[in-house]
């Protein structure tokens, strides 16, 4: 099944089938999410209305880590098994990951000013998230730096694999070191410390962003596959 899925044209058939459903789910989750975010969820006891930034900030932050893990998996696959589809997925993911990371940083900054009293501090969580952004940018540059796409893919894959170190640092920075950023609310071992009335909009938004990402990445993969096919055709003609 794995090799079947790794065949670009089979993959394309499946992705054409999935795409409209993902996009539809994105719209449904977004509308219901926005209803909860703006009308049906309460303000926070401490932060007041500012807490609503969380419903954008947290999905972006989770995606920025999730996309990177996916790219790391693809990079491993591409180096070991030399499969082009893994490179194509990596290449499709990188700019999206960079955008979600940037959105995390910007919304975090907007959230930080009214709550902490500062736009930016160099604490471990914020700095490691910024490093993640630079790694994404590095991936985009390296993968496009060579005339031969496969060469760029290879070096970008190595960068992605080495950058895995950053993931646990981002995740657990708030537990390992004193940071200004508060510790995790949802993934802690005891029960989550977000009230259900705020958890509902948060998860609606997380699913909405997730399906948004899946739809975009499927489109980008399609574009990349077609452009590679064109390249091969041109080489044959020349």
């Amino acid at each position, binding site marked *: 099944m794995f090799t079947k899925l790794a065949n670009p044209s089979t993959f394309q058939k499946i992705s054409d089938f999935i795409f409209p459903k993902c996009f539809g789910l994105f719209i449904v989750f977004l509308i219901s999410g926005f209803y909860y975010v703006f009308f049906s969820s*309460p303000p*926070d006891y401490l932060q007041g209305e500012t807490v609503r930034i969380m419903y954008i900030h947290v999905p972006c932050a989770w995606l920025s880590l999730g996309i990177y893990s996916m790219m790391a998996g693809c990079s*491993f696959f591409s*180096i070991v098994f030399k499969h082009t589809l893994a490179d194509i997925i990596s290449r499709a993911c990188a700019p999206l990951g960079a955008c979600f990371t940037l959105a995390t940083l910007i919304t975090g900054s907007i959230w930080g000013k009214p709550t*902490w009293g500062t736009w930016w501090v*160099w604490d471990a969580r914020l700095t490691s998230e910024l490093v993640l952004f630079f790694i994404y940018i590095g991936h985009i540059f390296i993968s496009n730096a060579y005339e031969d796409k496969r060469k760029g893919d290879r070096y970008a894959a190595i960068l992605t694999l080495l950058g895995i170190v950053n993931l646990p640092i981002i995740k657990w920075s708030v537990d390992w070191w*004193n940071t200004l950023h508060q510790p995790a609310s949802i993934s802690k071992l005891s029960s989550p410390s977000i009230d259900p009335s705020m958890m509902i909009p948060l998860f609606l938004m997380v699913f909405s962003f997730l399906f948004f990402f899946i739809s975009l990445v499927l489109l980008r993969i399609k574009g990349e596959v077609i452009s590679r096919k064109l390249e091969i055709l041109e080489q044959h003609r020349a």
Partner: protein
Amino acid sequence: MKLKTQRFFKVTSLLIIFLIGSSILFYNLKNNLVFFFSPSEILEKKISSLENVRLGGMVKKGSIKKKETEVGEKKVQETIFTITDFEREIFVYYVGILPDLFSEGQGVVVEGNLINENRFNAKIVLAKHDENYMPPELDNIVKPTN
């Protein structure tokens, strides 16, 4: 062994070595990556009063006092409060605008100079908030039991 399997083991082992190496590195960097020190930590270190440091902890309940002081010729309001980690505490003196979330019983990080064992002159005050999110009505129910 097939070439693929060979590559698999090569890449995996290199990655494991790299990850172990960097975790050793970060483990040893531990003390340099903290954003602030707690009162007990800061009092154990010998820090000169000229050095810029960050101190963090809880604002002790009932410790916030405001008074007028003169800086140059202007009259300004000075805030004095106590930062505690429930073991040791330090008085903090600060002139300026406080963040909205600054209040008693909340976390806070201040940047400035440790003048002596009791006095910390803050230049910047940052509010730290915890990982709890709940609607205001619930807070009134939960708080008294805390």
